[in-house]
């Protein structure tokens, strides 16, 4: 029994990454919960990671794969800082959404 399975090419991965990235962008734009917005940003970063790995594979270059580690470290650092800021805001205003934080404007 043979099922025709198309071999995934680099393009597939790139398209998947682009979709993930777009999902992240849309998530930031439509979600109100700061934590979820933050997760969407992480999604964007990981989409880029996927791009890097796919590209590295295509180019046969180790550089792209090592970059992923840097990005992970950076993302982790962002998590630490981001959560800190979000928690301190939520402590002051429990249940605040991103739209509630709009004192500064004009």
């Amino acid at each position, binding site marked *: 029994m043979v099922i025709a399975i198309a071999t995934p090419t680099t393009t597939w991965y790139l398209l998947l990454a682009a979709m993930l990235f777009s999902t992240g*962008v849309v998530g*930031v*734009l*439509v979600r*109100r919960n700061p934590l979820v*917005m933050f997760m969407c940003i992480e999604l964007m970063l990981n989409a880029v990671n996927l791009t890097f790995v796919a590209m590295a594979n295509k180019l046969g270059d180790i550089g792209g794969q090592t970059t992923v580690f840097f990005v992970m470290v950076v993302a982790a650092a962002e998590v630490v800082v981001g959560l800190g800021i979000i928690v301190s805001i939520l402590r002051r205003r429990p249940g605040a959404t*991103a*739209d509630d*934080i*709009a*004192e*500064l*404007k*004009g």
Partner: protein
Amino acid sequence: MLDLVWLIPALPLAGFLIILVLGRRLGEPRSGYLATLMTGTAFVVTVGVFIDLLSKTTEERAHIKTIFTWLPVGNLKVDLAFLADPLSITMALFVTGIGSLIHLYSIGYMHGDPKFSKFFLYLNLFVFSMLMLVLGENMLVTFLGWEGVGTCSYLLISFWHTRESAATAGKKAFVTNRVGDWGFMVAMFFTFQAVGSLSYAPLNEAARSGSIAQSTATVIALMLFVGAVGKSAQLPLYLWLPDAMEGPTPVSALIHAATMVTAGVYLMVRTSPVLAIAAWHWAPWIVAGIGAATALYAATIAVAQNDIKKVLAYSTVSQLGYMFLAVGSGAYVAAIFHMITHAFFKALLFLGSGSVIHGMNGEQDMRKMGALRKLMPITGFTFIIGWLAIAGVPPFAGFWSKDEILLFAWDKSPILWGVGLVTALLTAYYMTRQVIMVFYGKARWDDHAAEHGAHGDTHPHESPWTMVTPLVVLAGLSVVGGAIQLPFSATTKRLESWLEPVIATSERPLKSGSEDIKWVLAGIAVLIGVAGIAGAYVVYSKKKVKAIEPAVLANAWYYDKTVSDFMGGPGRKSFEFIAWFDQRIIDGAVNGAGRMVQGAAGVVRKGQSGLVRTYAALIGLGAVLLIAWFVFRGVAQ
């Protein structure tokens, strides 16, 4: 002595710094005397430099004193340098001279004001800036002064900040001036592109030798003119000047009559070869046209004003238009000549009006004045001299300079001459009207007594010596000021030979036909002036005339009737219409520009909603647009 030219601006600057540091401790009146002393000393130094220049031969009359190299740009450098040549020293003479008189006058005028020292602080800073403007060796130094006088003017107009109208007036001055500044900046960069330097000498040299492209020269000249239009209150940027009357009267006299507003004319004369030689031949026509239009337009508005200072303000705009008419007609000497005489008599008139306002306890409405001649004899006498000078009555100063401008205007085009002549007629008319309303006729100022009792009673009185002395000096100058340039022979044209090294090549030679009929033209100008005076006389003090000299009146009956009918009917209507147009339409346009910026800000503000998701969406939108552009570039290949 020539090397001391730097002292001229340095002295008022020192005054400014001293008052800045010690202002409160000096207090009134010492800070006033200090400021006056500094400006006065600057005047003395200027006279010294002037005498030194006189002793040189014509060719050597240009001395550059470099303080330090300011801005190295490529191979060329821009220096902080002062230029002592006939033109700049002429300007410096009357800036410091009239400046000192006005400082002295202000001591009396500002007496008792809580911000007394601050007033002199700004005044000294202004004189410093103005001197940088006229003494600058290159456009950058001039620009520094240019910005400085603008800022000081703004500060001084809004000096009585608590008055709401004063604050708005300051704002308007700022907006229109900035349009002019923009023109200056553009001209500066084009000059730099074209001749690789910002100094006037290479620019003028390039213009004379034709090494600068005609189109570039035209752009530079017209951009400089845009700058001049803003600073010298020409159509359509003249609005700020009448509004600037909100400031204290000495400020009106110093800044808005004698010095700052002449900066535009000065700049055009300073760079005269660019306009006169290098630019396309239609460029001077624009200058002359706008000058003539402004002269006429402002004069018609002046006729319908009732505020004593507003009349003078519009009159200033009108006279500045005259100067630009001269510049556009290639009569650079006449432009400077009129600038000088105008500085004398207009400063005199403004200070005189200030004295009247002072004596009337702040009343500015001419309808509530009258018969003040007896109560304020010196003010009245000097004001009348100023009136004769501006009305073009020989042998007062204004006659000579106005006459010369009209001669050149005739030479350029009889139409320009005609406009100038009508302006002269109107000038004589509204000034006579003012003199009659303020100093003659019935006293209308004690009408208040009924409403306010003894309390509201006004007792007009003569002003203190600090205020009267400058009036007398300026009156003297308004009488004899014309002597510096008399058209009888080459030797009596002193100003022309003095300014020759600066403007010789750009001055337009008169056609022989014009030279021949110059006395005829002068005669017509005198007649027109007299007609204007007579017209106002019959309209505004007719009853009196009837009572005294009925025969004269009978002879002039038709004239009288025509004038009365016209002025009472369609004439007044049209003047009032123009005044209305000025208030609503043109004023509205300037305010509109401000409102447009505010409106645009309102739109941009909507995006700045404070919502982080909106911001993210806008960033995303920007990203999409950028990607679209780059992809398009890729596909387009």
